[in-house]
């Protein structure tokens, strides 16, 4: 309990400070441009009670989960294949690097041409934005497995598939998970951009809610806040937690 207070204290103080600065600032500016925290809170409550925020958040989270899982499957399969074959790696890896540094939003018009203003276009952009990170992390995490551990595994009788399952995969895990963490972030950002642009869809997401709330500034801010909170929660509670757990177990980080 004490440790939890010690860990959560500073970030809570940070958020409180931000809200304070916001409240003071909002007092001096027209509420049509910068609404006060109280106005945003009531907009949030309104959005929750009439169901628009929970519905949009659920839709968006579902898309996020789907595109993250697809990116991980696709990225891992490609990365593993490239890790195994030197020629394929040298020829395909540069293309994946190119894909990773290309802003995902650049694919959106093309996705709309291919899939129309549909959910598919949004998810396509999220996957294209996220899977290269998984592929590159998979390749580099296999490349960084210490040769000594492979040798030790082999002298202890682990060979072939056993060597992969019991030595190489676990040794590669920290680098791989770091790649997943990066990938979900890309998927999340791409998803928001995609939703924002495909706001005409019947199915609403948080991005589409943003687009439709343009005349309701408190609601706009409340939606942004929900997006921020979801991002932070997924980062810390899912990927960050897994990552820290693995690293702490192996002594790669000390303390928190």
């Amino acid at each position: 309990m004490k440790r939890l207070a010690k860990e959560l204290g500073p970030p809570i103080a940070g958020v409180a400070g931000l809200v304070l600065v916001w409240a003071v600032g909002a007092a001096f500016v027209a509420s049509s441009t910068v609404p006060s925290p109280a106005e945003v809170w009531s907009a949030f409550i309104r959005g929750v009670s009439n169901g628009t925020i929970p519905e949009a958040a659920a839709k968006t989270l579902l898309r996020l989960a789907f595109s993250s899982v697809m990116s991980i499957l696709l990225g891992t399969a490609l990365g593993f294949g490239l890790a195994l074959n030197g020629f394929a790696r040298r020829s395909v890896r540069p293309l994946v690097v190119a894909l990773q540094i290309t802003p995902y939003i650049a694919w959106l018009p093309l996705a709309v041409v291919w899939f129309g203003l549909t959910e598919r276009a949004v998810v396509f952009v999220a996957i294209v934005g996220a899977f290269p990170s998984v592929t590159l992390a998979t390749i580099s995490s296999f490349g960084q497995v210490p040769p000594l551990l492979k040798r030790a595994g082999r002298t202890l009788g682990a060979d072939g598939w056993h060597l992969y399952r019991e030595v190489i995969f676990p040794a590669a895990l920290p680098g791989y998970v770091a790649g997943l963490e990066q990938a979900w972030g890309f998927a999340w950002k791409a998803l928001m951009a995609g939703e924002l642009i495909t706001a005409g869809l019947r199915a609403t997401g948080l991005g589409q809610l943003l687009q439709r709330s343009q005349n309701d500034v408190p609601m706009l801010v409340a939606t942004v806040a929900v997006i921020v909170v979801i991002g932070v929660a997924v980062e810390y509670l899912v990927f960050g937690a897994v990552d820290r757990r693995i690293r702490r177990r192996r002594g790669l980080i000390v303390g928190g």
Partner: protein
Amino acid sequence: MMADRSQGTATLLDDREGSRPKLAVERLVKTRTSSSGRTLTVVDDVTFEVRQGEFVCLLGPSGCGKTSILNILAGLDEPTAGRVLLDGDPIHGPGPDRAVLFQEPALFPWLSVVGNVEFALKHVGVAERDRRARAMSWLQNVHLTGFANAQPHELSAGMRQRVALARALACDPDVLLGDEPFGSLDAQARELLQNEVQRVWAESEGRKTFVFVTHNVREAALLADRVLVMTVRPGRLLEEVRIHAPRPRNLDDALVARVVSEIHEVLMGEVSKGGAP
């Protein structure tokens, strides 16, 4: 030529007429291509045998190819020419019949201390329900039962190498190969491990054959029945020194001290030769 040994049950085996060597290295050559594309001869025409139950140290300065020989014995590397035999059969690939203690402990960081030992047991076919108890007894053997559930990074360097020893022994190998396993330890931890290795070897009563690589003359004199002194580049066998000092040995033993100075003389002669144009 192997008949003048003095004590231990191993002697009985050695003296058995026509008994096959445990390990045989025949005219072994190992070359390597340097980064500039030149071919370097790392091991040049090395021949020796190791009897069952013997403790042999390959001694030489760094770059003498002793680690290459050990890697080939372990099956982690292939000879360029010549043969390496285990029980009369050519060695193909590594296996738990030849456990290796590396310079670094090479523990798996995702497994606990006892998990590392269980890893070895699993691959020699010990049933899952028996593994924990067996692993604990191997840890007891190196006095680390109190750290069974710790992660390797929580242990000192010496303790980690003792876990590696327990893990290697858990395979119940016929041969234990050591690649300067105490090289990176402080003096105290090194002495402790040298004693444990001596004890483990003695307790095997001639069933286990140990081949260790070292550049440390005192270590070789402390551990080995026989020291094979090597020259540097290309690595060749220079001299064979037999050690009859009783065990357990101590570096202060007069006999051990005499062997140390004897080997030093051989090595110094070699170094001064190497310095000549």
